[in-house]
């Protein structure tokens, strides 16, 4: 757990005092990733760096796992906090192994233990120990270097990690891969993480909570879905972007809005039966055909069913796409747009049809959240006006 209590930093500049962080109070529960988000110069990095005292706080306190860090020795405080920076900062004069084991060495681990740890870490970040440990940082690609940077921060297994735009300098494709890898690691490691980013998409993807900063102040601290649904003011709203409803698509999984009501036909049914079922279920264009294992095998369109006679097995079209229960709505929307369709069948892990997802259900689900937010805002406005 990380708790900031009125953390403040005032820089004395020739032009006068500049408040870089203004009474920041917040709490990150154990095992969660908190993204500090905002435009440049908003105080997010200053706030992060006050936690490990790279920047000395002017006033306020930092608690780690309930303990006030104010009187702790700076070096031992830092050795117990993982630190990853955008520029990676691997030491070019040291091998990968030396880089990774530098903190355990500072902590006085014995050699056998830290060498073992180095191999463990390499396995964790999916790099072959024998191929990499003896090499030097300049022989590695940017993505590999930042994986090593993360491994170095994790070396002494600190409960808390600070990450300052850790994936900012990596190309978009590798960045997505590393983000996914990191989230997977985090599921097991359950570190308490403060993570600075200026990229709203990264924040939504990585964060359990998002803290939005502006001009040294913490403007809003919410879970991603709340943030997108109910931005506190115009600044947050504009920072999130006009497509913030679309960004929520990333956060909702198919299983939250799947409807298990889906009409199907089997290959042995006649087209007449198919037409009847299309009408029964009120489908506009087509109905799904499934085999005996309830796997989707084709589509019977209304046009074919109406004008042709025969069996479904002889007159079906291919299923354009199916979605899984764990897919997010962004993927679903993308498939729908690509296939020019308003619904898609959902399949479970065995590939059996378990329901359908419609555009209507998606917009309704997203809209419900916004309507709720509006009501709360209205209610709040009413109470304040009454007072």
């Amino acid at each position, binding site marked *: 757990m990380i708790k900031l209590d009125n953390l403040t930093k005032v820089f004395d500049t020739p032009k006068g005092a500049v408040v870089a962080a203004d009474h920041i109070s917040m709490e990150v529960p154990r095992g969660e990733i908190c993204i500090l988000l905002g435009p440049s110069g908003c105080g997010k990095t200053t706030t992060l760096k006050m936690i490990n005292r790279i920047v000395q706080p002017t006033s306020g306190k930092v608690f780690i796992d309930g303990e006030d860090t104010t009187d702790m020795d700076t070096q*031992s405080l830092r050795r117990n906090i993982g630190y990853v920076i955008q*520029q990676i*900062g691997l030491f070019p004069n040291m091998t990968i192994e030396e880089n990774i084991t530098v903190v355990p060495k500072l902590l006085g681990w014995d050699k056998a233990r830290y060498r073992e740890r180095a191999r463990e870490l390499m396995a964790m970040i999916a790099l072959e120990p024998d191929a990499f440990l003896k090499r030097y940082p300049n022989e590695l690609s940017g993505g590999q270097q930042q994986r090593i940077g993360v491994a170095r921060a994790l070396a002494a297994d600190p409960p808390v990690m*600070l990450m300052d735009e850790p994936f900012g300098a990596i190309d978009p494709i590798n960045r997505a891969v590393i983000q996914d890898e990191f989230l997977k690691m985090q599921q097991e490691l359950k570190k308490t993480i403060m993570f600075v980013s200026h990229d709203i998409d990264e924040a939504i993807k990585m964060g359990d909570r998002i803290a939005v900063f502006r001009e040294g102040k913490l403007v809003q601290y919410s879970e991603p879905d709340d943030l997108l649904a109910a931005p506190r003011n115009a600044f947050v709203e504009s920072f999130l972007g006009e497509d913030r409803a679309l960004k929520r698509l990333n956060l909702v999984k198919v299983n939250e809005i799947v409807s298990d009501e889906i009409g199907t036909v089997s290959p042995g049914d006649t087209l007449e039966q198919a037409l009847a079922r299309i009408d029964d279920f009120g489908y506009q264009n087509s109905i799904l055909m499934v085999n005996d294992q309830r796997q989707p095998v084709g589509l019977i369109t209304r046009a074919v069913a109406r004008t042709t006679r025969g069996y479904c097995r002889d007159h079906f079209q291919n299923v354009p796409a199916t979605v899984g229960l764990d897919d997010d709505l962004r993927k679903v929307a993308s498939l729908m747009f690509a296939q020019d369709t308003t619904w898609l069948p959902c399949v479970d892990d065995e590939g059996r049809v378990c329901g359908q997802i419609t555009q209507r259900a998606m917009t309704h689900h997203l809209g419900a959240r916004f309507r709720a937010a509006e009501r709360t805002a209205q209610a709040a406005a009413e109470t304040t006006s009454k007072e």
Partner: protein
Amino acid sequence: MELIQYALDNLDLLLTRTLEHISLVGVAVGIATLTGVPIGIAITKNERVAQLVLYLASIIVTIPSIALFGIMIPVLSLIGHGIGYVPAVIAVLLYSQLPIIRNTYTAINNVNPALREAARGIGMSPNQRLRMVEIPLAVPVIMAGVRTAVVLNIGVMAIAAYIGAGGLGTFISRGISQSDPRQLIVGAVAVSLLAIVVDYTLLYVQKRLTPKGMERAAETA
């Protein structure tokens, strides 16, 4: 032909003088490294002190060597070393300060700030940062400063023959006083050759001392 004949005839003497020369410069630059590197590191902590120290070191280099020897004669006579080995070594020691201090200062100051922050962030103490990161990274540039000092002072040391310090300069001074071009030219050529050979030797040492992971970076730089 006459020159080569002379050089061969006096090979023993030539060798002795060369070794004298090397030992004079070696001792002086050795001591200068031991003082200059710590000074160079220390002044990175304070910009104003750094400027002052570098300024003083620059002034010293502008003093003509023959004048410096002249100044030292009365001073060092007080301890009975007005001429000879001691003033020669002191002069070279002083001249070496500028390249060594300046290169050390620049090298440590130019260590990538991201590396410095990473080192702080993972909990290295200031001394550990110096020992594990900053000095290893600065070694190539510091060594370049030492090389400059050595090559510069092989020339200066030739003049020290006038105050009886020995070395290859003896050939030159005798050549002049005895109007003997053979001695003069052999001495001058020997000094030049020595400078070139020593420079390459130190370049090799510099490469050996460069941390392995930085070789590629150092070559492209």
